C-alpha cells in the first residue's frame, strides 16, 4: 500500500448535492474529472493519489541502488525494466491527480518540501541483492493487495490508472519471488542473505498498510466515497495469509514467534509491527528519509536546465514554423 494515513477532508457542501453525489457512488457510477464533486472528495483524492505517485517515484531509489550491481546482465535488464515501470506508474498517477486541478510540478514541489509524504517502506535501506527479492515479493506484494481493489475506486481516472498498474505489478512481484527462490535454494550464505532480507522487510511491509483504522473517522469517510476499498487490518490479514505459505515454500522463517494458524478465523494470528517505529519513520526519522528526499531534490534541481532548455527549444521551433507559414 503506497498511501498511508490519508486524512480525509471535511466537506462543507450543500447537503442535497452531497446526498446526490453519495447516491451516484453507491450506485457504482464513476465520477469523472469535470463533474461536480465535494471539495473534501477532491482534496482527499489529491492527497491520496499524490502520495501514491510519490511512492512510485521515491520507490525507484532503493532498487536503483542495485542496477549497477545486479549479479547478471539478465537480472540487470529485468531490474531496469521494473524501475522503469515504477517511473511509469508514478506518471500514470500524477496524470490522474492532475485531472483534479493540481499540476504535476506543484505535486513535485510538495514532495520536495516535505509537505506531502510517500510510503514509509522506502525509508528502509536495500543492503544486499536479496533485498531486491524481498522488495519485489513483499513490498510489491503488499502494494498489490491494496491496488487490486482500487481498480474499482469511484474516481474514473484513478481507477483506470490502477488497471494499468495492476497489470504490471504482477511482473514485479514474480521477479522478486524468483530472486528469493534462487537465493533460498543457493549456497548456505545465499540462503542466509535471503533470510536476512525477509527478517528486515517483514515488519516494515506490514506497516505499509497503516495502523489499525477501525475507529478512524477518516477511513469511514474515504470508504463511503469508495476512495478506500478495505480497512487496513483486512488488507494486512490478507497479505499475511498469502505470504506465510510462500515463505514456507522458500524454506524461510517469518520473523514472528507468535505466528500461528487460527482455524476459527481462517487466517493467521501474527504480531503487529512496532507502531512507534512507524510514526517515527513518518516523522522523518527512518534510516533513509534524509537520503531519499535529498536524492529527489537533487534530481529536480539538476534537471531544471533540461526542462527549461527543452521548453526553450520547443518555443524556438514553434516560432520558426510560424515565420515560415
Amino acid at each position, binding site marked *: 500500500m503506497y498511501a498511508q494515513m490519508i486524512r480525509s477532508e471535511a466537506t462543507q457542501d450543500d447537503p442535497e448535492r452531497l446526498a446526490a453525489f453519495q447516491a451516484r457512488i453507491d450506485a457504482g457510477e464513476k465520477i*469523472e*474529472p*469535470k*463533474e*461536480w464533486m465535494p*471539495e473534501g472528495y*477532491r*482534496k482527499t483524492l*489529491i*492527497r491520496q493519489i499524490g502520495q501514491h505517485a510519490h511512492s512510485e517515484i521515491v520507490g525507484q531509489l532503493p532498487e536503483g541502488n542495485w542496477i549497477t550491481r545486479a549479479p547478471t546482465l539478465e537480472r540487470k535488464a529485468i531490474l531496469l*525494466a521494473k524501475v*522503469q*515501470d515504477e517511473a*511509469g506508474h508514478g*506518471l*500514470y498517477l500524477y*496524470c490522474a491527480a*492532475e*485531472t*483534479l*486541478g*493540481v*499540476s*504535476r*510540478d*506543484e*505535486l513535485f*514541489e*510538495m514532495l520536495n*518540501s516535505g*509537505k*506531502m509524504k510517500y510510503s514509509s517502506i522506502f525509508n528502509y535501506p536495500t543492503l544486499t541483492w536479496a533485498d531486491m527479492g524481498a522488495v519485489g515479493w513483499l513490498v510489491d506484494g503488499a502494494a498489490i493487495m491494496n491496488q487490486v481493489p482500487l481498480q474499482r475506486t469511484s474516481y474514473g481516472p484513478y481507477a*483506470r*490508472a490502477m488497471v*494499468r498498474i495492476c497489470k*504490471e505489478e504482477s511482473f514485479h512481484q514474480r521477479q522478486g519471488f524468483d530472486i528469493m527462490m534462487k537465493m533460498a535454494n543457493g549456497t548456505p550464505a545465499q540462503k542466509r542473505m535471503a533470510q536476512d532480507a525477509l527478517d528486515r522487510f517483514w515488519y516494515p511491509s506490514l506497516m505499509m498498510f497503516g495502523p489499525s483504522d477501525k475507529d478512524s473517522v477518516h477511513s469511514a469517510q474515504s470508504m463511503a466515497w469508495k476512495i478506500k476499498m478495505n480497512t487496513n487490518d483486512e488488507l494486512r490479514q490478507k497479505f499475511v495469509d498469502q505470504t506465510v505459505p510462500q515463505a514456507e515454500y522458500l524454506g524461510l522463517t517469518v520473523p514472528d514467534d507468535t505466528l500461528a494458524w487460527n482455524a476459527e478465523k481462517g487466517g493467521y494470528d501474527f504480531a503487529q509491527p512496532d507502531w512507534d517505529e512507524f510514526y517515527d519513520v513518518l516523522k522523518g526519522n527512518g534510516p533513509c528519509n534524509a537520503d531519499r528526499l535529498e536524492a529527489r531534490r537533487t534530481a529536480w534541481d539538476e534537471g531544471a536546465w533540461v*526542462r*527549461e532548455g*527543452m*521548453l526553450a*527549444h*520547443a518555443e524556438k*521551433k*514553434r516560432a520558426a514554423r510560424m515565420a515560415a507559414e
Partner: protein
Amino acid sequence: MSSPAPGPYAKTAAPEGDAPKRAEWPLWEIFIRGQHGLSHRHVGSLHAPDAEKAILNARDVYTRRNEGVSIWVVESAAIAASSPDEKGPLYEPANDKVYRHPTFFDIPDDVGAM
C-alpha cells in the same frame, strides 16, 4: 447550450500548493492504436515540451509492452469537451428512439438468424 468548455479537465486552483508558478511543460493527451485493427484509444496523458517529445515520451510511458503500433498526441488544452451539466439535454433526444435498436423488432423464429 453553452459553448463547449476547453480541455477535458476542470481548471481549478491547487488546494494545497503555494509554490511559485513557473513554466511547466504542457499536458498532452495520448491515443494509442493496438495491433488488432481497433481505433486509437485514449490511454492517459503526459507532459512534454512539444509534439515530437510527447510521442517519444508516450512510447516510453504507454507502450512498454507492445500495447500499440500507432500513437496520436494532442495538447490537452486543444480538446473541446462536452459539459457534464448538459448530459440531459445532450443525450435525451436518443432516449425515446428505441426503434433504433435491432431488438425493437420482433422477427418470427421461423425466419431464422437475422
